[in-house]
């Protein structure tokens, strides 16, 4: 028998999809049974009370969580988010219900024994409920009490080789795609870059001193599996400078139906025979491809590296060999001022492991210096860029304006040149000028 009646939540279980309500009930039942005889360190019925307070919120249309708090582990400004319930007498199990963010391993590679151990720890010292993974990428441990925080932190850092992630006004846990570990499209080693920068910027991650949150995300190619272009203040997207590699025989193979297009994806329905003109050439956003007399040609100068043709015919087409990444900046969710996608700042930079990614760090640090000094409280980088202009961003990063910075003529703000930026300047003789132009 459930501790609280939850008719409104029960209704959510009636749809065709898996329901978080069912998951919570399952965990509530498992804790009540306690088959492993765990000495629970927080109330055994925490999940029942969580269901109860959520039901109450559905019924009265208001949240019963207070906002924020002074909790954390010593010396860390992020990684723990204090949550207190404003109905502690009715729902004592969730009177304290703090969230912990645990940095996920690069590419989210786990061994099952690690996951089991982590769940055991969390069942023992927390609610047992997790969110794998939050939108920042972290392992989210949902709900524990203040005295458990240091204990869990000690376990994580000493026995799990694991650290807390970011929250608050700091660098958030960097996240990357699976990259070269599994994916042949990867144009650089996303895991190494993600891991290296995470280690390098520990101070920014754990000791918040930014105006607001800051996110890095790393995608190995423009398919953008971690959606860095939309979800991070700075996104690193793999790309290439030279030509798409074409295997003409394999192209013919696709045309003849020897291989399924899209590596067999979208196979749930009969799309008819593969039509290279309709499915590839006509869909190229820059119209830079043609297929004539059994030969595929690409005008690479016009290609925007959208990945479409490569995704459709992965056996025949591959990214070029001169690879690196593009850096885009300023993406954010809509809290203030509307959602924004990243703007291209660096069209191409070498991703150089040998020198510790010096070129990339230089851009990062110039941006932080600017934003830390000029950013208003709770202003994201994308908002500062809008307020002070893209040109100011170019100045502070020392990056020269190039054609790629212009989305299309007359839509971006114009780049205005200063006299000292133009060879020869534009000094004029005002008297000469006034001879032909009256005041």
């Amino acid at each position, binding site marked *: 028998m459930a501790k609280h009646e939850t008719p409104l939540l029960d209704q959510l279980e009636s749809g065709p999809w898996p329901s978080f309500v069912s998951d919570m009930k399952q965990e509530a039942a498992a804790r009540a049974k306690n088959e492993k005889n765990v000495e629970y360190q927080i109330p055994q019925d925490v999940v029942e009370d969580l269901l109860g307070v959520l039901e109450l919120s559905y019924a009265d249309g208001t949240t019963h969580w*207070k*906002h*924020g*708090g*002074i909790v*954390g582990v010593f*010396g860390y*400004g*992020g990684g*723990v*988010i*204090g949550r*207190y319930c404003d109905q502690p007498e009715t729902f004592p199990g969730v009177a304290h219900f703090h*969230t912990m963010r645990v940095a996920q391993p690069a590419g989210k590679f786990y061994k099952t024994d690690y996951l089991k151990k982590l769940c055991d720890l969390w069942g023992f010292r927390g609610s047992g409920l997790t969110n794998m993974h939050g939108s920042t990428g972290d392992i989210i441990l949902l709900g524990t009490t203040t005295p458990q925080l240091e204990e869990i932190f000690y376990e994580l850092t000493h026995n799990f080789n694991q650290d807390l992630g970011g*929250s*608050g*006004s*700091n660098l958030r846990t960097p996240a990357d795609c699976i990259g070269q570990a599994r994916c042949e499209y990867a144009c650089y080693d996303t895991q190494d870059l993600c891991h290296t920068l995470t280690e390098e910027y520990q*101070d920014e991650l754990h*000791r*918040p*001193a*930014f*105006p*607001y*949150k800051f996110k890095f995300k790393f995608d190995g190619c423009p398919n953008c599996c971690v959606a860095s272009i939309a979800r991070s203040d700075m996104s690193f997207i793999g790309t290439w400078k030279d030509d798409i590699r074409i295997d003409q025989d394999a192209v013919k193979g696709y045309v003849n139906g020897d291989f399924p297009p899209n590596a067999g994806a979208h196979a749930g329905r009969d799309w008819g025979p593969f039509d290279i003109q309709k499915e590839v050439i006509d869909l190229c956003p820059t119209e830079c491809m043609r297929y004539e007399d059994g030969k595929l040609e690409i005008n690479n100068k016009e290609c925007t590296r959208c990945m479409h043709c490569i995704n459709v015919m992965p056996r025949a087409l591959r990214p070029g060999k001169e690879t690196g990444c593009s850096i885009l900046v300023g993406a954010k969710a809509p809290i203030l001022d509307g959602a924004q996608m990243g703007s291209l700042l660096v069209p191409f930079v070498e991703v150089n492991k040998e020198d510790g990614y010096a070129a990339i760090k230089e851009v990062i640090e110039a941006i932080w*210096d600017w934003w*830390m*000094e000029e950013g*208003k*409280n*709770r202003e994201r980088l994308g908002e500062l860029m809008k307020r002070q202009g893209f040109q100011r961003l170019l100045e502070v990063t020392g990056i020269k304006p190039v054609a790629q910075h212009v989305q299309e003529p007359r839509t971006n703000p114009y780049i205005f040149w200063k006299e000292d930026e133009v060879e020869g300047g534009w000094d004029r003789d005002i008297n000469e000028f006034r001879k032909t132009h009256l005041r």
Partner: protein
Amino acid sequence: MELEEAKEKIVEVLTKKAKTKSKFYFNDLSKILDLKPREAKKLVTKLIETEVLEYWSSGSTTMYGLKGMGKQASAEHED
């Protein structure tokens, strides 16, 4: 700037404002110290380590306050 001097300045201003405000943005602290953010951060971090200051977090934003001052109430604009 020496740590002692930073501590004095910050404790003085934060104590003076304690009646109306118990949480401060990092920017407020670097203004009190009149230092660039990176320099200010080094000192502020030490003040956290020595438990003069403490962090407060909403989850998305972090603020600073004198240790033990300004409990939850001020987060909810009740005082």
